[in-house]
Every structure is written in C-alpha cells, then in structure tokens.
C-alpha cells in the first residue's frame, strides 16, 4: 500500500510553553538549548499546569498506552505519535524476602532492569529526547554515555530511522559496548573518563548540528525520568511512597522523580504527603555524598575509580539539586564500597530474582546501610529504584559467584555432586552462624 500523504504529526495542543532557567528565571523558546545564556544555569521545561489539570484524569492515564506515553501530557513533546517502543510500565515488585533480610516491612523494587528496549531506565529519557529531536528537525542524534545511554540512543535511533553517533569512555564493560555496536551507530570510544567524554561532546555540540540527547536536548531528555515517579504512584494504587532510594550519577534522575511526584500532587492526581529522598553513590565516585556529608552547597569534582561505571560521574550537573532535595525531605545520601556493591547485586538476585548491574548494587547496598543506621523506618513504604540490568556488567561479579558442578551423564555422578554441594552449603551456614 502506498500512502501518498504522511499523516500530520501534530494534533493535540502541547502542554508545555517554553524553557526557563532554574537559577535566574530567564525564559526561552522551546528549542534545542540546555543552559541559560545569562548565568549558565540549567533550563527546565515549563508546563501550563492549570491546563494540564483540566485534561488529565486517572482513568485517561489507565486507559492509555502500556508505556511512558500514557503520561504524554506531562512530557515535552507536541506530537500525538511519539516514538513508542514499549518503554516504561516496568514491574513494581513487593520485595518481601529482601525486606525480611534487611529488617524492614514495606519494601518495593521498581525494576527498570527489564525496561524496553535496552534494559535500563535510559530508554525513558531517550524515547522522549528522540521524539523531541525529530520535532526539532534533527536527523543525527548523539550522546555522551557511560554505556546504558549509548545502548538506548543507538537502539531507539535505529527504530526511528535517525543517524546516530555515540561517545563512550574507552574502558567500558564489554556488554555495554557490544550492546551499542549491534545497532550499527558510529561509536567513538574516547580515551578518558566520562567527564572528559562529556566535555568533548559539549564542544562537538557547539560545532555540529546534532541533537545530543543529554546536552542540547537535555531539558527534554531529563523530563523522561519523571515517569519513574508517575508509575510508582500509579502502581501503588495512586499513592505516594514514604521513602525512595535511588542511585546518583549526575543527580538528574533523583531530581526528576521528585518533580514527577510533585506534579501529580499539583494537578490533583494524588494526595500530597512528605516523601523522603535518599541517594546512593559508589565510594570511588561520590562527589554528591561528600557534599551532603560536609554540608556544602557546591560540588567538588572528583576523578572516578569504581566498578560502578554507569554512575561514575565525577562532575555531576545536578549534584547541588540532589543534595538540596535529600536535605529538605529529611532523606540521606550515602556511599558504599565496591565490595558492598557486589554484595548488593548478589543480595538482590538471591532474595528477589532480579539481576541488576553495579548501579543497582549500589542502591541495594545503600538501602542496607540506611536500614542499619536506623534511617529507614521499618514500617515506611520504601521504593528502591533498580535502573539497569546485570547482564551488561558481568565483569563486576565474575569470581564472586559460584561455579557450575560439572558431572558425568550418570545418576551416581549427580548424587555425589549433590551430596558435596549440600555439605558445602551446610559449612557455609555454619560459618554464617558462627
């Protein structure tokens, strides 16, 4: 069938009106720009909330697509046909076994390890960024990535038919590099850490007319993370949790979950209450945790050295805002060692059947630390955000997990191996008990 005329993309009026500087309040048109021309503060999308509260209802959302686009009026795109590859609406799992192990009662895991199409929360932000990139007329999209974002940008660009060039640090985990190359983008492996990649991309964005999802498209891109807030509210039966724990890299995800919660309260979709926000960092890259601990309102950059590469940002753009939110919500920001991160990955897998990557290990290890320090009330409804998949960072756990028992294809060989395995198990238990 030949369709002579492409259907027009824009049917519903956009609910956003422009961009505004978070620092000085200067206003701009909703184009591809991310920092204020006057003070270099970050630009944020401005919505017409009174118009929004007239058009959104719980029923409309529930009857919408089974993806982040059920919240389209809260996202900064104009089209009614966004790029929808089934992103979002990931499971919110009641984690009873993990909760019991930690000594708390009402724990949930928001499981973006199974987000679509590339198994991390980044699919949310990229779906929004590329939809907006198309509206703004970009034909090439790009990003500075620690791995997950490159996977997602390359995959969704392939689906949308956009040219793609991604920049990653050269020392990334093999799974993350392969998981990008398969979509056949141009991949620039930069000999440097993420902060150097990011700086280079800012320079490239100055001179090439590309849509960098996390640079010149950042105000749109980052709004995608709000859906992690909306979904939790909806999945808790239209209620806010009491406490959330999320990983901190640039701090953007953390601040946008907060914004998502606030927006649903503002338009009357959920009853307001105080939610505590706690953040998780790896000790080998913890500039936000350090600022929190030292009660500073500025971030001192660090040079990352941790296995948690996906969150190893030494110069985090939204760090100051993350500190502010943790403080004003009576949450906390903690950091954990690489060994604790591996234990966190294993603990989540063994108790809940979820295999997360190092960022998720950081979150679980931090959750454990917060419980042990009495910073999480056992009765609080607590949501831990798991943002990526363990199959991508296999190197991190190699050598820390068991090995298969190799046996002959004979019953007696199996019986002997089983006996041995059970003895080893018993010994391990005795060690634990002692």
């Amino acid at each position, binding site marked *: 069938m030949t369709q002579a005329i492409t259907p027009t993309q824009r049917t519903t009026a956009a609910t956003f009106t422009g961009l505004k500087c978070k620092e000085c309040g200067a206003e701009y048109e909703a184009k591809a720009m*991310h920092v204020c021309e006057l003070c270099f503060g970050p630009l944020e999308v401005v919505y017409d909330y009174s118009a929004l509260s007239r058009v959104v209802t719980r029923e409309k959302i529930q009857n919408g697509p089974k993806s982040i686009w059920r919240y389209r009026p809260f996202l900064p795109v104009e089209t009614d046909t966004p790029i929808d590859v089934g992103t979002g609406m990931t499971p919110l799992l009641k984690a009873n076994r993990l909760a019991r192990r930690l000594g708390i009662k009402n724990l949930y895991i928001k499981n973006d390890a199974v987000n679509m199409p590339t198994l991390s929360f980044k699919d949310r932000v990229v779906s929004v960024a590329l939809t907006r990139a198309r509206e703004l007329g970009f034909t090439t999209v790009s990003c500075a990535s620690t791995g997950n974002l490159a996977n997602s940008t390359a995959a969704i660009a392939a689906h949308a038919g956009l040219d793609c060039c991604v920049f990653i640090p050269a020392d990334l985990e093999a799974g993350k590099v392969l998981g990008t190359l398969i979509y056949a983008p141009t991949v620039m492996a930069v000999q440097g850490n993420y*902060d150097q990649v990011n*700086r280079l991309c*800012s320079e490239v964005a100055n001179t090439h007319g590309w849509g960098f999802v996390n640079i010149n498209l950042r105000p749109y891109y980052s709004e995608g993370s709000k859906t992690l807030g909306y979904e939790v509210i909806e999945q808790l039966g239209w209620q806010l949790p009491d406490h959330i724990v999320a990983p901190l890299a640039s701090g953007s*995800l953390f601040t946008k979950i907060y914004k998502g919660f606030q927006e649903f309260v503002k338009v009357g979709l959920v009853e307001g209450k105080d939610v505590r926000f706690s953040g998780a960092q790896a000790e080998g890259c913890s500039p936000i945790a350090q600022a929190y601990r030292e009660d500073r309102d*500025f971030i001192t950059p660090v040079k990352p050295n941790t296995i948690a590469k996906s969150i190893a940002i030494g110069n985090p753009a*939204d760090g100051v805002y993350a500190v502010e939110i943790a403080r004003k919500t009576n949450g906390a920001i903690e950091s954990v060692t690489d060994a604790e991160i591996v234990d966190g990955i294993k603990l989540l897998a063994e108790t809940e059947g979820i295999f997360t990557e190092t960022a998720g290990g950081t979150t679980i290890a931090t959750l454990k630390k917060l419980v042990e320090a009495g910073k999480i009330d056992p009765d609080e409804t607590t949501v831990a955000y798991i943002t990526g998949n363990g199959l991508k960072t296999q190197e991190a756990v190699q050598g820390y997990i068991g090995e298969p028992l190799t046996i002959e294809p004979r019953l007696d060989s199996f019986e002997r191996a089983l006996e041995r395995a059970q003895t080893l198990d018993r010994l391990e238990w005795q060690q634990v008990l002692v």
Partner: protein
Amino acid sequence: MTVKVLIPTPLQKFTRDQATIECTGGTIAELLDSLEQDFPGIKARLCDEQGNLRRFINFYVNSEDIRFLDGANTALQAGDEVSIVPAVAGG
C-alpha cells in the same frame, strides 16, 4: 602568552559566532580580563557580581578541570588550549 580558547554556543554572540578564538593571559584570571577587552560584556557572563567564576561553568586547561589545578590562578603557557564549557550536561 597566546592561548587558544574554545567558546561555548551561548557566548558565541560575543565572539561574532566564532567557536575558537586566540587570546592572551598568564593566568585564567588575566585571560578573563583580556577576553573582556576583546569582547566587551563576556566577563559578566562568566563571573558573578563578586568576580568569582560562575558555578555552572567549567574551565579546562589542556583538558584538565582548573579545579584540579590552581583555579582562576592556574598558569597558562603559550599554545595552551582553554575550553569554556557549561557545567550542565550529561547524566
């Protein structure tokens, strides 16, 4: 001391749309003054009312963040590359 300076998009209106310029200065602080002479108005965008570098701007000398060097007093050599980059990016 002539150095190469990379100018971010929001400041290119001061530099007549040039992304790269040549400028002089023995330190970052001196460079800022000489930038102001060549492109009046640019310093107020880079520094706050107290004259401190704004917190949402990063300066790099040959790819190293000046906060790991000597801040605004970081010394410059002829041929150095100074990159001015908005801090808000990535993640």
